[in-house]
């Protein structure tokens, strides 16, 4: 009962936050019903996916302060599990997705156990390494299509196929990922107030103190790493059905890992809204800049310049990201 209450209890946020959040939620629900371009739709789906990636990353990276730069490997595990199972054995998304999550979480325990013996920069570097190793393996593994990747061909199915998540129109994908988005917010809202959430925040504060308060620091980190993994693996499975064409280079790349981490950090690591704000700023910026500038006159890469500029400015002003700036201004007003 208490768990349920905590999940839906947002009362510790100021009313203005909740009003903004309410408006955003309403906008997200009605967005597909107002006229929009297919490009806008694709951007919105990307935004929701990256919000979920960020929310997952935020549990271990934000609340726990463990900078994880290897989340793409779990995106890959989720995406490949769903794609392989669908293509080879015709297993629908709703079965392959949980299996993908289990495989990813299992792998995260194997990786996490030795990795969390490391701290700080060493941990971050090690997460990059494990992710790249897995990507290299997938690039030569014929069972999963090696470097060519896998393609889910929609002609074989009769869309709309709700079991296999094969649709012609993006609106279906939109509402499904929106459902996961709301569930993700509720989960993180529970997490941040749970015992594990408090333990993680205490670990971020000071590990020695955390241990002296009865917290098994190593185990708490591994558990939270698994939670973060479940989030990204789930979205990875969705990615496979939505994009229908997956290869190691885009589902498991270092770019993706870093984008996930940066998005959450930019928005505000360790806050509920941070990753959503980060994705809300960066994803439209990224895709529209690419669309407007990248295609014209050899300006390829200019989006990346803008994008790094914003990150530099924000991290110089406030390391806790956009949300950190908001909170700082608020606290100043209070005092």
């Amino acid at each position, binding site marked *: 009962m208490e768990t349920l209450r905590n999940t839906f209890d947002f009362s510790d946020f100021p009313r203005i936050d909740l009003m903004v959040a309410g408006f955003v939620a309403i906008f997200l629900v009605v967005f597909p019903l107002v006229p929009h371009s297919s490009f806008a739709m694709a951007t919105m789906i990307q935004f929701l996916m990256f919000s979920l990636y960020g929310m997952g990353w935020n549990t271990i990276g934000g609340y726990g302060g463990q900078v994880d730069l290897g989340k793409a490997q779990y995106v890959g595990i989720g995406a490949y599990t769903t794609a392989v199972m669908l293509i080879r054995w015709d297993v629908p998304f709703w079965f392959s997705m949980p299996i993908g999550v289990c495989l990813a979480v299992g792998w995260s325990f194997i990786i996490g156990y030795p990795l969390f013996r490391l701290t700080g920069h060493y941990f971050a570097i090690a997460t990059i390494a494990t992710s790249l190793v897995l990507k290299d393996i997938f690039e030569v593994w014929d069972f999963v299509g090696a470097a060519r990747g896998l393609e889910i061909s929609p002609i074989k199915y009769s869309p709309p196929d709700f079991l296999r998540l094969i649709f012609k129109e993006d609106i279906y994908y939109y509402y499904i990922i929106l459902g996961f988005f709301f569930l993700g917010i509720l989960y993180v809202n529970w997490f941040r107030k749970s*015992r594990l959430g*408090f*333990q993680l925040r*205490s670990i971020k504060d000071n590990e*020695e103190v955390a241990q*002296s308060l009865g*917290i098994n620091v190593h185990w708490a980190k591994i558990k939270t790493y698994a939670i973060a993994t479940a989030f990204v693996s789930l979205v990875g499975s969705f990615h496979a059905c939505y994009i229908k064409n997956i290869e190691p280079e885009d589902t498991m790349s270092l770019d993706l890992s870093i984008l996930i981490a940066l998005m959450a950090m930019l928005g505000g690591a360790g806050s509920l809204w941070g990753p959503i704000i980060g994705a809300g700023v960066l994803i439209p910026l990224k895709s529209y800049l690419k669309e407007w500038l990248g295609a014209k006159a050899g300006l390829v890469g200019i989006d990346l310049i803008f994008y790094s500029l914003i990150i530099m400015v924000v991290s110089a002003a406030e390391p806790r990201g956009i949300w950190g700036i908001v909170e700082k201004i608020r606290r100043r007003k209070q005092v």
Partner: protein
Amino acid sequence: MALLEVHNLTKDFDGLRANDDISFTLDQGELVGLIGPNGAGKTTLFNCISGLHPVTSGRIIFDGQEITQLKPYEVARRGLARTFQVYVASGDLTVEENVMVGCFMRTRSRAQAKARAREILTDLRLSDLADYLMSELPVSAQKRVTMATALGSDPKLLLLDEVAAGLNPSEIDEIMTSIKHVHDDLGVTVMLIEHVMELVMKVSHRVVVLDYGKKIAEGEPAKVAKDPLVIKAYLGERYVREHAEELK
């Protein structure tokens, strides 16, 4: 009844003997001071007892069970809490949340942890500070909060590492009241490392004195203060020689 027994504890750091064959016991309900000049090995001793440093040799028995090999969090779960001398808080947690982390050791329920944290904060007269971030507080308040946090785990024994260091006299009075309250009213056995002599000599039933890693004296504060070995440790050999008459 002995709550904590330390038998022949020795701790080496790469050839430097930080604790040398230290033995003492703490009885249930005692309030004991641990004193000694800088570098005497007091904090190392706390770190060994709380499991942060593995001991080189010796045994530690807490509440009838051996805890020598246990990890810090296992020691904590058995009811041995401690505070740290230097508290570095990145400042993400408010005072109340900090205390809640301690309370979460005994419960999974957030509501219970919160209620217990409120109780402790009220008890230590810290409830006005509940919503401040740790980093916004002066050192004296931070130290009292770390005490409150340790109390959140409902310990049988509380090890306090220099809670009065760097405080002014009125703040020292405040923290002394808090320590006495924790011991007298909450029934927690307390051992405290302290350089502030007026505090440690006033509140302790007994003091243990370390110098260069060895235990050089133990007993009632008034007696220990007159012990030539202790005076030598603090003031040097020459002082003892020159003031031999007064000391007798």
